[in-house]
């Protein structure tokens, strides 16, 4: 009986792989529809925002999330996230003056990785994955502020974000509308922390790839709209004759959220990014999903045809008890939807333990699968990470 079941499951899985797009669409639809039908108790990383049904701006200075936390975000990280909260007031400590605040993130990893090469196929070591310092300066009573995000390790300092922001509604970035200009992380889809995730890697919308441009954000109740124009690439290959245009729309319903993004990079060869994302919470379980459809104009070097790519992420979080979170993610990347049997997958299991305020330990395992012809891209990773945040 067990074998028959296993066989059926295997058959089901085999068939599912050919219909991955449909599976992801159905799954996200299931998340949304199920939440409408089931009882729900409301209780950021995006899973925290979804868990609390809040916008990213509730916890972060940058309305799009990531980087420096605001007062509420600092208090959340100090008191609600960890198993045991410290008694000091981290929000107060971070405020150098009433108008100048600082913050930091530092991640230190121990990694083990093994790929499918026949020789030299393992690597082990320690690494400072990244360390960032943040600075936020507000001009009193004007809605005007300056935000600075600098990666200071490993290696030489690299500026990630540096922008001036004007809030039309005053100092609360989660209300009214705002205008940002400078070096920005462009708002696109779910801003998850893992830059190596397919949805962040294939789209290039990650924390290693900010851009120079202007962004307008509009908050209408539970709806947020971002419109932006940027260079289209962050560094020397920028084509000054063309720009990138993008928009993101997100709405928080009482039980779930949905959002969509669209980006047109109008270079010599156009790139179009479209995505749909959603998230919801069932009790102690939180779910996120994102699908991206990418069109690369004339990217096929053989016939100069467009290449279309499909990328997805599904993530489930389970809060076992305060300070403990288990994360399971499944990712899918089809690098050319016109070519069969070229898909990539990645599965991750992460345990996040926050024993004390401002320190989180993460233990993770990832299994990356590619076609057998790419042995270096078929690998398993085990890592232990300490994450200091302030």
């Amino acid at each position, binding site marked *: 009986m067990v074998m028959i079941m296993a066989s059926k499951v295997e058959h089901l899985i085999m068939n599912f792989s050919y219909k991955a797009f449909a*599976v992801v669409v159905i799954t996200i639809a299931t998340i949304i529809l199920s939440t409408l039908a089931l009882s729900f108790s409301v209780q950021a990383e995006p899973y925290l925002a979804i868990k609390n049904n809040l916008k990213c701006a509730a916890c972060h200075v940058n309305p799009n999330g990531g980087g420096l936390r605001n007062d509420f975000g600092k208090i959340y990280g100090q008191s609600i996230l960890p198993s045991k909260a410290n008694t000091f007031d981290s929000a107060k400590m971070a405020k150098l003056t009433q108008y100048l605040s600082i913050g930091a993130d530092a991640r230190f990893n121990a990694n083990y990785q093994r790929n499918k090469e026949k020789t030299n196929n393992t690597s082990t070591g320690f690494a400072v994955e990244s360390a960032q310092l943040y600075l936020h300066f507000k001009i009193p009573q004007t809605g005007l502020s300056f935000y600075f995000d600098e*990666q200071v390790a490993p290696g030489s300092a690299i500026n990630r974000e540096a922008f001036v922001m004007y809030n039309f509604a005053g100092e609360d970035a989660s209300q009214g509308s705002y205008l940002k200009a400078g070096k920005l992380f462009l708002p696109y889809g779910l801003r998850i922390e893992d830059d190596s995730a397919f949805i962040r890697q294939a789209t290039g919308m990650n924390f290693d790839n900010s851009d120079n441009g202007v962004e307008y954000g509009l908050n209408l109740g539970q709806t947020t709209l971002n419109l932006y124009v940027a260079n289209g*690439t962050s560094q020397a290959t920028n084509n000054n004759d063309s720009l990138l245009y993008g928009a993101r729309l997100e709405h928080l319903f009482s039980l779930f959220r949905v959002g969509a993004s669209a980006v047109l990079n109008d270079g010599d060869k156009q790139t179009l990014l479209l995505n749909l994302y959603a998230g919801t919470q069932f009790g102690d379980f939180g779910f996120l999903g994102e699908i991206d459809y990418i069109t690369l104009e004339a990217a096929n*070097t053989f016939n100069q045809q467009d290449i279309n790519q499909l990328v997805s992420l599904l993530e489930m979080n389970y809060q076992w008890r305060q300070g403990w979170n288990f994360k399971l993610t*499944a990712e899918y990347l089809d690098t050319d939807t016109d070519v069969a049997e070229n898909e990539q997958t990645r599965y991750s299991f992460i345990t996040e333990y926050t024993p004390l305020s401002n320190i989180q330990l993460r233990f993770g395992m990832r299994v990356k699968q590619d076609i057998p012809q790419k042995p270096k891209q078929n690998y398993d990773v085990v890592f232990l990470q300490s994450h200091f945040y302030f």
Partner: protein
Amino acid sequence: MKIHLSIVLILLALTGCKAGSGEDLDEQGRPLDEAPVIEPIDVATPPDDGMKATLTSIQENVFTPICATCHGGANPAAGQDLSSLESSIANLINIDSSNALFKRVLPGSAAESYLYLKITGDSRAGARMPLGQPALDEASIAAIKKWIDDGALVPQSASTMAKVSRTVTSMTNKTDLTPNNLDQLLSQSDYIWRDKEPLSIIFWFNKAMNFDHLTKDQILVSAYNANEITANQYFVPNKQVSVHVINDHTLQISVQNLAPNITKLAIRLNEGSISTLVTKMGETLDGDDNGVEGGAFNYELFL
């Protein structure tokens, strides 16, 4: 019950996809029945049987399978697309890096190339690449280093025009430079010229050139004195100029016994009215870097 059913559905979906079998695909994940992707092949390179210090080999073994997972696709990391040979050429050679002190690839000098610093974990270059993956194997790193140190040649058949990729000026009267002792010259390149000292200018070309019939008569060397630049330009006599072919893509032009009061030295290569430089494939040098074959390359040195 509904919650349990939903969670089971989600878990099923989470594990519902698997990687492709790779059936009928090549090592780049492209269909075998799709005619071979037109990848320029080095004329002098024998069939690939491992990692070589050529851009074609580096592209096939490192850039495409490893780097292009991030530096490719819709929005390449750092705007640096390494997914094809042509895009790697366009995005690496003589392109400014995020550290203002370095080019991504500076022909002739791996130690001053951000790409090399990145893959070796040099602290001046931030996070080691490939990000989140094991460091490149030693053979790959050595091949990239040698490719850059050798002048970052591009394949003969690449659509990129043949051009001068770098010039370095040094005080030396050595005319026996070889690829192996070029380092000596580079170490003397930070100089203050003193009257009458010999000057050597090294020209790197991005493609293998045909220097077989090159003579110094085909190179115009002129000098300007200290008083009135336009009125006092003169051509440096041939006997003061020497040309030394270091290898098929590196040329040394030396000038000796310059007058003490000169303020500028100018060298003109590929002057169409005299003689043009061509690659081994017969492609004319794009001296003025306008994307079209031909045009003079002008080098100027203010003294």
